[in-house]
């Protein structure tokens, strides 16, 4: 390998040589600020960072873990039930859940990162971050309709329970674009905070909550009028959000440095309640269908913190694997599945006792998970393998992986 060494060493040496003298302030009061810094860096250093960043991403945000919606008449059911997997490479792979077989990929825009399906199951909306568009896909035929132009850098989507409006958070514009699903036309964008990251809608469909990561706020949007209400302060760097099935509380994970938390927001008054302390770097959240427990996934602590919603108290954290980054709960509420990105495993947690079961091996760097409405199968997207692993929930065994596109990043399943 010695003939390979010289140019690499030279280039590495060049790179190293560009470092200036460090400006350090090493003392006990210093707090990690890398997360915030990085967000700015990725955009200010256009060249190198732009290349480095277009990797895959994650699951959530968006419809994060939507409250299960009861099937509506005419919904896609039975053999036609389909999981839609958005691939970072610009396609969507439909997978028939009855047989776990992949259909021909559907072309989307550049860097799809989020996907949501209307409650009637007829249309899947794919958010193309780099194109600034949303591609509607007719699920009956798996054909893409013309892309809908939204704001800059759209990154999350949620659809109202009546299926009439899709709300798309535009991270680059600081806005939310409502899309009328009947006509696939946009309404005027609603101004929110800086770097909107995730969006969730109350079960009554009256309010959409948007986390503004850089502003450190959550903006409620009245869906009847599409007007933004006064933003609610919610910790530094709020990211994922989930709303209880009764619609009374929105839970937002937030924090930086040495202070990590989940902030409950009362939807009646739009005020933040006292934050609940979680592990280090909470990243994902899901709430049981009975609304009694919110599960917060802590990436660095390698734990899941159950929060009793009645009292907003944290229970003892449950140890999972290395770098957990996504969670989904079965419709019967009995099992929470936590994806361990680094290990390529999924840890089932029995919610009755909050005990972790033996991890299930999936592919490399899994990032997104979704469970079929009948609760029988969990689909896990393996970003580095370009596959989706179905897990039979009855036995917690992995079935053979299904091939998708490159960098499968988000999954949604028809109701």
């Amino acid at each position, binding site marked *: 390998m010695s003939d390979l060494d010289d140019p690499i060493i030279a280039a590495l040496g060049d790179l190293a040589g560009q470092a200036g003298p460090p400006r350090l302030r090493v003392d006990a009061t210093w707090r990690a600020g890398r997360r915030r810094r990085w967000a700015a860096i990725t955009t200010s*250093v256009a*060249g190198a960072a732009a290349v480095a960043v277009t990797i895959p991403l994650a699951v959530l945000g968006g419809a994060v873990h939507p409250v299960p919606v009861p099937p509506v008449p005419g919904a896609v059911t039975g053999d036609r039930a389909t999981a839609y997997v958005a691939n970072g490479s610009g396609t969507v792979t439909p997978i028939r859940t009855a047989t776990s077989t992949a259909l021909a990929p559907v072309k989307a825009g550049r860097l799809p990162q989020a996907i949501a399906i209307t409650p009637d199951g007829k249309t899947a909306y794919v958010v193309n971050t780099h194109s600034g568009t949303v591609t509607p896909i007719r699920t009956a035929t798996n054909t893409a309709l013309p892309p809908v132009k939204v704001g800059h850098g759209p990154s999350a989507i949620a659809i109202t329970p009546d299926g009439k409006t899709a709300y798309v958070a535009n991270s680059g514009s600081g806005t939310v674009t409502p899309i009328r699903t009947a006509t696939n036309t946009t309404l005027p964008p609603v101004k929110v905070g800086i770097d909107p990251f995730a969006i969730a809608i109350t079960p009554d469909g009256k309010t959409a909550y948007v986390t503004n990561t850089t502003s450190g706020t959550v903006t409620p949007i009245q869906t009847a009028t599409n007007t933004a209400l006064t933003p609610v302060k919610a910790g530094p760097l709020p990211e994922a959000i989930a709303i209880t099935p009764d619609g009374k509380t929105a839970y937002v994970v937030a924090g930086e440095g040495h202070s990590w938390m989940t902030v409950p927001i009362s939807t009646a008054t739009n005020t933040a309640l006292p934050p609940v302390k979680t592990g280090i770097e909470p990243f994902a959240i899901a709430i049981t269908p009975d609304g009694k427990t919110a599960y917060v996934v802590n990436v660095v602590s390698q734990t899941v913190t159950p929060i009793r919603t009645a009292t907003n108290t944290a229970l003892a954290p449950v140890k999972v694997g290395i770098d957990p980054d996504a969670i989904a709960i079965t419709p019967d509420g009995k099992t929470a599945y936590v994806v361990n990105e680094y290990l390529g495993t999924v840890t089932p947690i029995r919610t009755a006792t909050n005990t972790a079961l033996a991890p299930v091996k999936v592919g490399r760097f899994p990032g997104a998970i979704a469970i079929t409405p009948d609760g029988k199968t969990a689909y896990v997207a393996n970003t580095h393998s370009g596959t989706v692993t179905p897990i039979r929930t009855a036995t917690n065994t992995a079935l053979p992986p299904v091939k998708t596109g490159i960098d499968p990043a988000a999954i949604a399943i028809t109701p």
Partner: protein
Amino acid sequence: MDERARREFAEFVAARSGTLIRLAYVLAGDQCAAEDLLQASLTRAAARWERIHTAPEAYVRQVMVREQVSWWRRRARRRETIMAELPDQAAVVPDTGADIRITVQMALRALPAGKRAVLVLRYLEDLPEAEVADILGCSVGTVRSQTHKAIAQLRSVLAAAGLTRTEVGL
């Protein structure tokens, strides 16, 4: 931390930061992120100085690499958001030695989590494979395969930029 440890630590920071920032820079990709990375790692070193004071530099290097690898992963995991328009990249047509080096640097920066760390440790830090495996918490076989893949990836990036193997020695 007692007075002696405090003094030792201050001396260590004063003496070695200029070298450590080079590794931090290659890992993190720019000065701000490099300083954050080094600062965070030194802060951790200070907290456990009693246990690591006999070999603090190895410890700080290891913390920086692990921290950065997990940072890349986290960054990749967090959905990308955009705060300003990024221009499409113009094709690079290098014709001088300096341009080639810049292209190689760009390719290095574009390597994903893990792979850049492997190259940095193997070639810049000149560590044996076993030590790289130890720092990254993986097997020697993984270090080898990651090195191999990283070089293959560099090669394809450079080929796409119009550089031939002989020009860059790959």
